[in-house]
Structure formats: structure tokens, C-alpha cells
């Protein structure tokens, strides 16, 4: 029967991926100065599991890497070596190699790269530092590669008269040939009917059999491993002896069982694969060789190395062996010819023995009925399903339509007499509640915890800090904060950039930090939280902070126009200018001046905003504010003439009914509105969009103060209408990009309302000036 191993691949891929991720987390968590044994053990287990699976499913390249990895980890968990930063680095790189190998196998390729050999060599070199070379952990995948086995004493017994000597051979000749393998001692009398010899050699049993084959039929021999079991007084020695082996499939006679039980834990019978044919002879030998203790009852035993070939063994005399013996007995009774277990040795089977093919056939022709325990186990029900994002988006769209339909119904019903149509109004209220719940439920499908992005940062921080010779810890807060999957994916790059920047430019070198009275270890904090309808992500460091003078000097040098004595906030915003870098030297981490402008562009593309706070000597905080989702917006509908617009609620600070004296015109600077003592640029939507509505006096409109990336501005509109949750429809895909508009939505009355992009409006206004 062949079993298609590929059917298990996917489970292995998933599992190995999880183990690799877990290993990386644990490695990053490991404190090399005070390593936690449990952590080391867990890391070892992860590597070990990957190795086991990789070996089993034939991914030998991965098995080889995990093997060297595991060897060094084993030294660590056994405390033969102290972990060092260098080791952790190498472990992490080995993890990367394994990930690459795994990814390659998933695509049905094999990963070939110099990194593999390099990492393995490095790991091996590191583990050579261990006091005892881990030679006894030879990788089991290649058991053929043994270190030469130590000299072992063998007992060889045979009936002299049973030996079928080939022409010209006799006992002396046999001994001489055997002497080439090692020292031969005769334990029996020279002329005894039963010859018992002891051979001390480092050759394997196969070699002995082959030697005998030159001079006689090896089927007549009983070869066993001479361990302490022969000598009850030597039990202790035997236990430490590397000897182990198989319990023979020889007759599990009561006599033998008795001996085995008495010798619990020590008697160690090899089930000499390849000498199984000797079993036939065993019955006789058992009686004849009674003088040799149970040894005689255990025809055939085998040396350590041979057993490694076969990959398994059974401990003679151990609990459970009674069953094995009984099975063997049964097998024997049913199949008197004995039992050739390992096919490749079958050529040695004497002609009167039937080759081994028969026994290993499924014993039960009937499929087992599922037991109760089985049914209970029945594959733990999968609690998640994979659905394409497209389907989810389609759902979201449909829910959006439903919300709009409800709004339309409500609009139509608004003219009805409430008392006379109570049922309609009740129904509408229910519909509203249900569609809102439905909307939330559907939206939550797309939500993922931000830990999906945060999780990569322990590694980023560690690698970046190591490269720069800085000491930095990372604190993650609010990892459970959920936001839209699309946003999570697009947040990764900007965050990565910000974090690396903070380590490179923010956190000082350890000596510098000590000099300024700070702990050597710098700290980066990533914090996510919900604030109103937005998600706020903060990147904070406790480094040197931004240098106002340096930034201003650089700005002057690059010809960036700034007002006299600008506010700190405006100065900090300079770092978002394209090509702006104050780093004295360019590192490969950052400093080329590309990036921060891209960061801002990326965030703004998600309808988000970036703010900077910095305090010299105490650090910098960069705050990213994002909408929860790209699909739905909390907005305020405002009217200009006959047109409706939507203002994102998050941008609105306040709205006031202005008076005549709040408006003023500054020569060359356009119009301003004075709100609470501040002069804000005034944007009149009617003019921006050239609406042909009858003019209204300024003081009859409403001033809405909104926060933009360009600072606060005041929008003059005709009327505030209502607050809505609106479903965002892209204007670009249906029409084209319009400056100052971020999208469109359908209102309850079926009309289209445009969603205002306040940042773009502010820029537009500045340009008009």
C-alpha cells in the first residue's frame, strides 16, 4: 500500500508557518542575559516539530536546517551554552531561511540560496563551543552516516553439526575468518556440540553474517548482542550501555517471557531484521542453549547501528512486551516459516523459508466501525472559513444600498400622518435598526486587529537597532484595536518607515543617552486606539526629539518658505517635505530624505492624517489618524444653494452662526474669518465649486471650522442639514477625480451628494490666494 504524502502537505505548511512565527516571537522575547528555560524549551520544541514534519514529508532541505538549529538550541536548553545575541541573530536568520524554504515548497519549488549553507555553517560553528560535541544527536534522517560504533561483544552460538560447511571449511577456518573482524573467544569446549563464541568487534552484525556466509549457511547461527542482561550482576552497566535493540519475533514462549519480565528494563533483544530467519532455528537453540540464560531464548539480536537502519526498536522486558511476544507467537503458529521482515535482506533467507511477503497484510479486512472516542474526536470543527474579499465587498455594497433604500422609504413616509400610519412608522424604525445592525455586522467581517501589522515590529526594531548599535525596546499597546483589512495592509509600509526613522534619528546611541541622564535602553511605543469614528496609531520614541534650529536652517537652505517665527507644529511638518533630511550622514536605514513625504501621502490616501509632536531631549510622537473603514463615513450633510455636500464628521471642530464683523479681507491673502480670536482662511464653497445659486449674505450662512493638514480653515455654507452614515461611492471609478471631492454618496431622497475633501479644499484655497 502506498500512501500519497502530498495530502498532508498543506497541514504541514500551515503548522510549520505557525511554528516559525512562534519561534521568532519567542526569540525576540528571549532575554539573553537571563534566559528563561521555558522559553528556550518552547523555541526548541518549535524547531523540533518543524524538523519532524519536514523529515516525514520529505522536505529534507528544511529538515537539515532545523537539524543544525535544533542542535544548538538543545545545547542552550540543556544549559551547556549560554545564549548570546549572536546566536539569537543567527536563529532569526535561520528562521528567515526556513520561511523562504517553506514558501518555495508551497509553490512546489525548492529554495536554493547561499544563505542556507551560510546560516548552517554559522550555527554549527556556534554549537562547537559546547563542551560536549552534540555528536549523539546525529540527524536521524541520514542514519547511514554513523560514527564508527564502539567495540561490542557478540555471542555467536550454533550447533557444530548443524553447520553446513562449504567444501574445505571447518571450525578453525571459520574462526580465522572471524578473527579479521575482531577478537574471537571460544566460550564452549572445542568439541562441544553447541559452539558458543564471543566476538569483540566494532563491525556490525551484517558483517558477521557475511563472514559466516563465506564458510557456512548463516541460517544456522544465533548471534546476539552480549549486554549486561547476560550477567544479572551487571545490570547497571547494561543500562548505560548503548546497546538496545529489538525483541525478537522468535517464539514468545512462557519461559522467555518469564525471563524478560524478571530482567525488566535490561534484557535487550534485537529483532534482528535480516536474522529473522534465524528464528526458525530458535526453538532448538532455546533448549540447547539453556545454559546461557535467556540469551538462548532470544535467537537473533542486533547491534546498535543496525537498528538505526530500521528506525525503530523495542525494549526487551519492558511493559507491553508480553503483547508483542504473544503476537509474535501467533504469527509463528500461523506462519511456521518465520517471518522475513525486511525485504532487502531476503536474499539471505534460506530456501525453505517463504519470503516475507505474506504477513504484513492488513489483519482486519473489515473497516473498523468508528468507536465512540473516535466520533468525539472527529476533527475539531473549523471555526473559520475563507471567503474572498470580493464577496465581502459585495455584501458591504448591498448593505449600503439597503441603507439608502431605507432612507428613501423614510423620506417618502415623512409626509404621512404618523397616527394614521403607525404601523408604517414602526416598520420603518425596525428596518432602520436592523439595517444598521446588519451594516455593522457586515463591516466587522472586514475588520482585523491591528496586531496583524504590529506583530512584525519586534523584529524590525531588533534588527534596526542591532544594525545601528543602539539598544531599543518596543512597547505595543492596543493591539486588539480593529480596523479595516484594506487599511491594515496599507498601514504597514508607512509604520515601518516611521519606526525605522525613530530608531535611526530619534533614539540616541547608548552612551549619549547615559550622558543626558536617560536609561541606556531606548523605547519605542506603538499604540493603537479608537477615538470617535477613527483609529489613532501612535509611534512614540523617547529619543532626542526634533531639532527646531536644524530644521529651520535646512528649510532656509532648501528655499522652503516659512512665516517668521513659525509655530513648532509647522516646523515639525517640514520633515514631510519631499527631499528633506537633516541627517548628517545617510545610513542604509534612513536619511536619504525619501520616505516621510511618501508616508504622509500614503496616510492621506487612506483619508488619514499625520501629526507630529516633539520635545527636544524627550522624544517625538507621530500620530496617525485613520477612518475605521474606507466604505462608510460618518458625515454631516450641508447645503449650498441647491446642492448637498457631505463633510466628514471627524474633520469638524465647531460650527457657528457668524456675525458681520467676523469676516475680513486681507490684501493679497484672500478672505479670513475670525473665530474665537483666531484668524482662519475662509473658504466659500459656493465660489470654490462655482455654484450658480443666488448669493447669500455671509452672515446668513454658517461657518464650519474644520481641521486639515494645512491647518484649520473656516468653511462658509448655507445650512447644516443632518448627520448621516453615508456609504462612500468612488467618484473616480464612475466619473473622474475632482479636486476637493473625495467621493460621492446617495442620499435618502435618491440625490447624489458629494463628499468634501477638506485637506484638498485648504490646499485649493491656498493656491487661489
Amino acid at each position, binding site marked *: *500500500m502506498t*500512501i500519497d*504524502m502530498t*495530502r*498532508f502537505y498543506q*497541514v504541514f505548511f*500551515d503548522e510549520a508557518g505557525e511554528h516559525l512565527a512562534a519561534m521568532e516571537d519567542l526569540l525576540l522575547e528571549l532575554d539573553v542575559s537571563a534566559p528563561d528555560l521555558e522559553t528556550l524549551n*518552547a523555541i526548541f*520544541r518549535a524547531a*523540533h*516539530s518543524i*524538523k*519532524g*514534519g519536514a*523529515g*516525514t*514529508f520529505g522536505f529534507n532541505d528544511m529538515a537539515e536546517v532545523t537539524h543544525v538549529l535544533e542542535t544548538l538550541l538543545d545545547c542552550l536548553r540543556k544549559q551547556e551554552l549560554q545564549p548570546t545575541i549572536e546566536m539569537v541573530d543567527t536563529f532569526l536568520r535561520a528562521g528567515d531561511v526556513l520561511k523562504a524554504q517553506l514558501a518555495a515548497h508551497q509553490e512546489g519549488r525548492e529554495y536554493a540560496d547561499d544563505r542556507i549553507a551560510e546560516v548552517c555553517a554559522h550555527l554549527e560553528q556556534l554549537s562547537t563551543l559546547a563542551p560536549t560535541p552534540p555528536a*549523539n*544527536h*546525529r540527524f*536521524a*534522517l541520514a*542514519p547511514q552516516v554513523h560514527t564508527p560504533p564502539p567495540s561490542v561483544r557478540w555471542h555467536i552460538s550454533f550447533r557444530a553439526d548443524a553447520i553446513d560447511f562449504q567444501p574445505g571449511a571447518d571450525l578453525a577456518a571459520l574462526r580465522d575468518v572471524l578473527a579479521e573482524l575482531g577478537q574471537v573467544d571460544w566460550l564452549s569446549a572445542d568439541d562441544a556440540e553447541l559452539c558458543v563464541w564471543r566476538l569483540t568487534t566494532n563491525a556490525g552484525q551484517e558483517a558477521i553474517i557475511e563472514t559466516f556466509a563465506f564458510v557456512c549457511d548463516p541460517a544456522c547461527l544465533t548471534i546476539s548482542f552480549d549486554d549486561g542482561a547476560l550477567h544479572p550482576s551487571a545490570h547497571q552497566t547494561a*543500562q*548505560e550501555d548503548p546497546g538496545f535493540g*529489538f*525483541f525478537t*519475533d522468535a517464539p514468545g514462549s512462557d519461559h522467555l517471557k518469564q525471563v524478560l519480565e524478571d530482567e525488566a*528494563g535490561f534484557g535487550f533483544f534485537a*529483532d534482528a531484521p535480516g536474522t529473522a530467519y534465524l528464528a526458525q532455528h530458535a526453538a532448538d537453540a532455546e533448549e540447547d542453549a539453556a545454559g546461557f540464560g535467556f540469551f538462548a531464548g532470544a535467537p537473533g539480536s542486533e547491534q*546498535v547501528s543496525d537498528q*538505526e537502519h530500521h*528506525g*525503530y526498536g*523495542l*525494549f526487551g522486558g*519492558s*511493559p*507491553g*512486551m508480553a*503483547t*508483542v511476544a504473544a*503476537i*509474535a507467537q501467533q*504469527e509463528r503458529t500461523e506462519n511456521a516459516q518465520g517471518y522475513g*521482515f525486511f525485504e532487502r535482506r531476503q536474499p539471505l533467507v534460506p530456501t525453505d523459508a517463504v519470503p516475507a511477503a505474506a*504477513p*504484513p497484510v*492488513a*489483519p*482486519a*479486512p*473489515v*473497516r*473498523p*466501525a468508528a*468507536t465512540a*472516542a*473516535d466520533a468525539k*474526536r472527529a476533527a475539531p470543527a473549523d471555526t473559520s472559513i475563507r471567503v474572498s474579499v470580493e464577496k465581502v465587498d459585495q455584501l458591504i455594497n448591498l448593505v449600503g444600498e439597503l441603507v439608502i433604500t431605507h432612507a428613501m422609504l423614510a423620506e417618502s413616509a415623512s409626509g404621512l400622518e404618523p397616527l394614521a400610519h403607525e404601523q408604517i412608522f414602526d416598520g420603518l424604525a425596525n428596518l432602520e435598526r436592523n439595517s444598521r445592525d446588519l451594516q455593522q455586522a457586515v463591516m466587522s467581517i472586514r475588520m482585523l486587529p491591528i496586531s496583524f501589522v504590529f506583530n512584525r515590529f519586534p523584529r524590525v526594531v531588533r534588527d534596526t537597532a542591532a544594525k545601528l548599535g543602539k539598544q531599543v525596546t518596543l512597547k505595543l499597546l492596543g493591539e486588539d484595536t480593529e480596523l479595516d483589512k484594506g487599511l491594515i495592509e496599507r498601514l504597514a509600509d508607512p509604520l515601518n518607515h516611521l519606526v525605522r526613522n525613530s530608531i535611526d534619528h530619534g533614539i540616541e546611541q547608548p552612551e549619549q543617552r547615559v550622558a543626558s541622564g536617560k536609561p541606556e535602553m531606548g523605547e519605542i511605543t506603538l499604540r493603537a486606539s479608537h477615538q470617535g469614528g477613527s483609529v489613532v496609531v501612535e509611534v512614540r520614541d523617547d529619543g532626542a526629539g526634533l531639532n527646531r534650529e536644524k530644521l529651520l536652517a535646512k528649510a532656509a537652505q532648501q528655499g522652503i518658505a516659512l512665516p517668521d517665527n513659525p509655530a513648532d507644529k509647522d516646523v515639525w511638518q517640514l520633515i514631510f517635505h519631499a527631499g528633506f533630511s537633516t541627517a548628517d550622514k545617510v545610513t542604509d536605514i534612513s536619511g536619504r530624505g525619501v520616505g516621510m513625504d511618501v508616508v504622509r501621502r500614503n496616510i492621506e490616501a487612506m483619508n488619514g492624517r499625520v501629526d507630529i509632536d516633539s520635545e527636544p531631549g524627550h522624544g517625538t510622537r507621530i500620530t496617525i489618524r485613520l477612518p475605521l473603514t474606507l466604505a462608510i463615513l460618518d458625515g454631516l450633510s450641508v447645503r449650498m444653494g441647491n446642492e448637498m455636500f457631505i463633510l466628514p464628521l471627524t474633520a469638524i471642530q465647531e460650527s457657528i452662526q457668524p456675525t458681520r464683523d467676523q469676516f475680513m479681507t486681507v490684501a493679497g491673502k484672500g478672505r479670513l474669518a475670525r473665530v474665537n480670536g483666531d484668524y482662519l482662511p475662509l473658504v466659500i464653497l459656493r465660489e470654490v465649486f462655482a455654484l450658480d445659486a443666488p448669493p447669500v449674505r455671509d452672515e446668513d450662512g454658517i461657518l464650519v471650522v474644520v481641521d486639515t493638514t494645512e491647518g484649520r480653515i473656516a468653511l462658509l455654507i448655507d445650512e447644516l442639514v443632518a448627520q448621516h452614515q453615508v456609504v462612500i461611492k468612488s467618484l473616480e471609478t464612475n466619473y473622474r477625480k475632482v479636486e476637493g471631492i473625495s467621493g460621492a454618496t446617495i442620499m435618502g431622497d435618491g440625490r447624489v451628494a458629494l463628499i468634501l475633501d477638506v485637506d484638498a479644499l485648504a490646499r485649493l484655497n491656498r493656491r487661489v490666494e
Partner: protein
Amino acid sequence: MAKTILTVDDSASIRQMVTFTLKDAGYAVVEAVDGQDGLDKAKSGRFDLIFTDQNMPRMDGLTLIKQLRSLPQYASVPILMLTTESSDGMKSQGRAAGATGWLVKPFDPQKLLEVVRKVIG
């Protein structure tokens, strides 16, 4: 009646392979994800043979074997260690813990069947 085998391994892929192979050969198989789970399942059922991995979270294979051997119903049930540790030290520890034998990982389904048939028929 089909013999029932308990396989204790923290690796889902290995468990799946063992289960599939043994079920295919007509045995009933129950899986456990670590030593503790194995012990719990062993207590609540009866098994003719137990395979256990060594390195597992919560409870390792050696501990599991010792615990099982202290239970009267498992005093003489064959228990095989399924492990990548092919070192002699591990084997003598296994023997001391009461294991009936060992099977080196990685192994292929045929090898597994050979061993199972040898041990419980």
C-alpha cells in the same frame, strides 16, 4: 474487532499522517495533541497501543509514559515513543520510563504499519 491506537503528538501534520495510515489499515485511531491530552484520553478510553512524541508542550512523552504505567489498565499496554531523538540517552530514558519501544522520526507510513503489526498484530 479493530484494535484501537492512541497517537499523541503536538504536530497536526504528523497526527494526520499517522491517523490516515492506521485507519487505512483497519485500525481505530484517537489523536491527542500533547501529553496531558493523551493522558486524559487514555484514561477515558481503552487502547491497544499508544504512540507518543517526546517533545510536546504541557506534558512530554516520558512523563506521559510514566503516568500511564502507574495506571493499572496501562501497566502492560505497548507504548512506543515516536521521536526524532534517536540518541541512546533518550532510549534508555524511554526504557526506564516504561516504554515498550521507539520509532525514529521521520518515518514513513509503511514503517509505521510494520511496527504496529509487529506489536499488536
